[in-house]
């Protein structure tokens, strides 16, 4: 038993050491409505994030797995989703695509701008990563040559092609919230987390019931096991 414990401790140590040695950058951690035991989609925040996405991000980034109908999963009514789509001159089932084509993108930025609709799953840290990047632009420290890029505290390698996309007051929120950089970054990170896994909240809520069921099932199976084995245990 002692040896099993030693082996386990060693493997845990190994795992932590593996993470530490990757030379990764500590991201800013934020509170998200969709994590923890009371996970939910904050409809107003998703609306604000949607406003940032459709007023700022969309000029370069597409959201190809998102259509306005998806908003109903986050608590919007079908009419609200249709109204928002209408404001963009879009059908409720239409994909949200940027006007920037891959060719233009390549010419302007030297790379194809990534689609954002699974971004919260495609980077370590997910929403924390998005939030950190958006608020992580700084003057490059003396001696760091960023070339045509920009300096970002949280980007791996620190030189990012995307210029700082958000600045205070850039978006006009329909609910009157003050559009600070922090606020916009947090809202749009929530929006991207939502479109990356719209099922996330449903999944987390359902998990509780499945786990409760399994714990009861396992406990009953154990009681039954003991009852069936009683005569064998007695004999030996």
């Amino acid at each position: 038993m002692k040896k099993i414990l030693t082996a386990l401790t060693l493997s845990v140590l190994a795992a932590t050491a593996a993470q530490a040695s990757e030379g990764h950058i500590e991201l800013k951690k934020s509170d998200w409505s969709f994590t923890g035991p009371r996970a939910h989609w904050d409809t107003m925040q998703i609306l604000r994030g949607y406003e940032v996405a459709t007023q700022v991000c969309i000029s370069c980034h597409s959201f190809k797995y998102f259509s306005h109908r998806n908003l109903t999963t986050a608590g919007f009514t079908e009419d609200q989703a249709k109204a928002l789509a209408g404001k963009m001159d879009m059908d409720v089932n239409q994909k949200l695509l940027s006007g920037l084509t891959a060719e233009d993108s390549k010419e302007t930025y030297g790379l194809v701008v990534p689609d954002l609709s699974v971004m919260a799953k495609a980077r370590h840290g997910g929403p924390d990563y998005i939030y950190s990047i958006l608020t992580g632009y700084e003057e490059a420290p003396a001696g760091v040559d960023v070339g045509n890029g920009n300096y970002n505290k949280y980007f791996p390698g620190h030189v990012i092609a995307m210029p700082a996309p958000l600045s205070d007051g850039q978006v006009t929120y329909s609910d009157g919230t003050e559009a600070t950089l922090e606020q916009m970054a947090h809202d749009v990170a929530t929006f991207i987390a939502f479109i990356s896994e719209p099922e996330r909240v449903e999944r987390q809520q359902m998990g509780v019931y499945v786990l409760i069921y399994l714990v009861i099932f396992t406990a009953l199976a154990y009681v039954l096991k003991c009852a069936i084995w009683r005569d064998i245990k007695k004999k030996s």
Partner: protein
Amino acid sequence: MNKAMKWFDDRLPIFSFLDKQLANKPAPKNLNYMWSFGSLAGVCLMLQIITGVFLAMHYKADVNLAFDSIQHISRDVTWGWLIRNMHMVGASFFFIVVYVHIFRGLYYGSYKAPREVLWWMGILILFLMMATAFIGYVLPWGQMSYWGATVITNLLSVVPVVGKSIVVWLWGGYNVGDPTLNRFFALHYLLPFIICAVVFLHLWALWTSKSNNPKGIDLKKQTDWIPFHPYYTIKDIFSLGVFLIPFTFMVFYLPDYLGHTDNYIPADPMKTPPHIVPEWYFLPFYAILRAIPHKLLGVIAMVSSIAIMFVLPWLDSSKVRSANYRPIFRQMFWLFLINVFVLGWVGANPPEGQFVVIGRVCTVLYFLFFLSLPLVSKYEKTKPLPTSL
């Protein structure tokens, strides 16, 4: 058996077969919970096949559509996200279960006579599982799918003379591309059924040579045996519950934890990811591959690290099966287990600095475990064995 069942059974004796081989099969009465991992592996295989069949109904094996079709499954297919998460997490848990099952066999000497062929079938299943899992990871067509496939299939190019031709034949072209994806999908659907066939042979060998037990002795007394049902059916059902709790937790709360975030970036042949890492269950073998500076020898070492288990029953000639009665082998077993974990850790890290040294030392230790067994089994002083339970 009622009349109708008897009529059927006289013509096709399925019921008496099930009765004889499963329900009333005598099993040693002292099997511990480590023996539950065999039936758990069976459950995992079924789970992968059932979820896999449903995924295949919505998946598209085309380089332009594959990534999108996975998103379609997660977003639009009814319960698609649940089925996909179960399949993804299920693959990892299948390997956890099978690795425990193998280490149990190693500890209690289940590979020894008369169970050598039973053991062989198990190793064969492991090889087939690895092939299936590797191919399956290519299907989502993310960055890690593409580059993992490129790196691993390229290993075959080291085969002398025909290596390059084999790789082109396997790819169906001059790089990993649409033909590769298409045939990988076909193979990923085929291999599980071949695994099922080998599992049947594995069970057949088990029914013939009967279960080993924690004491590792041949049980002669009638009272040492109990019927499989209900004793081990209920024990295995309880074990299944214990297994399903962490499994379910991962499915609902950390479905991507054991995967790699890069696989949510669509495959891009023009852009190599900074670290190409295989799935966690390949890491120890990946470390062995990279420990050897010569490409061909590295591939040979990696394949041998598993293939050596085919000859394990002859490397270890000790008549005593269970490590509980073998003081030296027992110590070696635990060191070997720790060594495999360390190899996994090395495999997860880039091959530089200390990791190269540690990887090489651990690779030597890995093979030393097997190669020292002929001597150990000859000179080891074993403890006296009981004659019955």
